[in-house]
């Protein structure tokens, strides 16, 4: 359900930056390690943009795969969850990718 808040944040931020221009496309990056369902963001986007500069805009969501780095040995590893175990046995894994939630760009008419 936090996808609604997140979508509202996207719409508010993009509306502000658009400075009154009509927005036709918004591109966001959502890391796969976040507890965020991209389909739910898409679902919320239409209703949230109603009456804003983003009404009718297309939303592109790029999902970013998870990567971590072991704090003990420095090795990098793939992550499918926001935690993991390194081949050296350590659970001290720093997430280096896949936890982002960023608005990359917008296209204005």
């Amino acid at each position: 359900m936090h996808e609604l808040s997140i979508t509202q944040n996207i719409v508010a931020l993009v509306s502000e930056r658009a400075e009154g221009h009509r927005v036709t496309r918004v591109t966001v990056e959502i890391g796969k390690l976040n507890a965020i369902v991209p389909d739910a963001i898409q679902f919320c986007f239409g209703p949230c943009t109603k009456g804003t500069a983003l009404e009718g805009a297309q939303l592109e969501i790029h999902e970013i795969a998870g990567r971590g780095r072991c704090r003990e040995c420095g090795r990098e590893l793939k992550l499918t969850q926001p935690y993991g175990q390194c081949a050296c046995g350590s659970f001290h894994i720093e997430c280096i990718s896949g936890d982002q939630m960023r608005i990359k760009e917008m296209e204005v008419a």
Partner: protein
Amino acid sequence: MCTSCGCSEHAHPTVTVFQDGRPVRIENHDPHTHSHAHAHHAHSHEHESGTTIPLEADILAKNDLLAQRNRGWFEGRNILALNLVSSPGSGKTTVLEKTILQLAGDIPIHVIGGDQATTNDAERIQATGCRVAQINTGAGCHLDAHMLAHGLDELQPPPDSVVLIENVGNLVCPALFDLGEFCKVAILSVTEGEDKPVKYPHMFRAAQVMLLNKIDLLPHVDFNVERCINLARQVNPDITVFQISATRGDGMEAWYQWLKDHLPTHPPGLTTEAT
């Protein structure tokens, strides 16, 4: 439009201060949020047909900005703020009641509680003699930094005190929203599954402390404490775990001591106590 909370026309969050019973609507507009960061601002780009404008902005930037403001507000007042998170029914309110009753004589404690609806928890907290504000999030599934700022405005906790924030019972959404607290304290009870830390890894990774509550019920439930703590440490190797029974008092001393040990210390020359 409010960019921080889930305000909508049908579900306005409100904050109720129990000392005077006023429910105050959290307006879906906060003048403070208008000073948006201008880094990466696209003023210089032409707004022509089909122009792509790079934004490179964190989606939760406004919440994070407000959270940092709250954090500064706490630091400036020497206030320890803890964000208590758990599923519904883990015993958060009982932990709060017991903590307040135990420490109230030594440390002023204020509580800001979040629930979708009702002031039931705030009434329980107020019965302990503690000042409390209840935030009803309406449709919202978590507290955010904007709501907390309104709660603090209404509650006005004094310097050198503790603010305990009882978040909405939910192990998913509150993990994403920084409120400006010192740390999150996750409460898990032994009547829940022992694998909750790996089922809801974001929350247990975001928390610095886990209170494993209701241990008085261990003889009656199938719950492997050691496995639960191991799973929590897989998700978050640095998590501090206290095994407690808030109703019976087991293990609570260690939690109280942790809390006392984390009270902010005065910077030299700024002590408010008479010397």
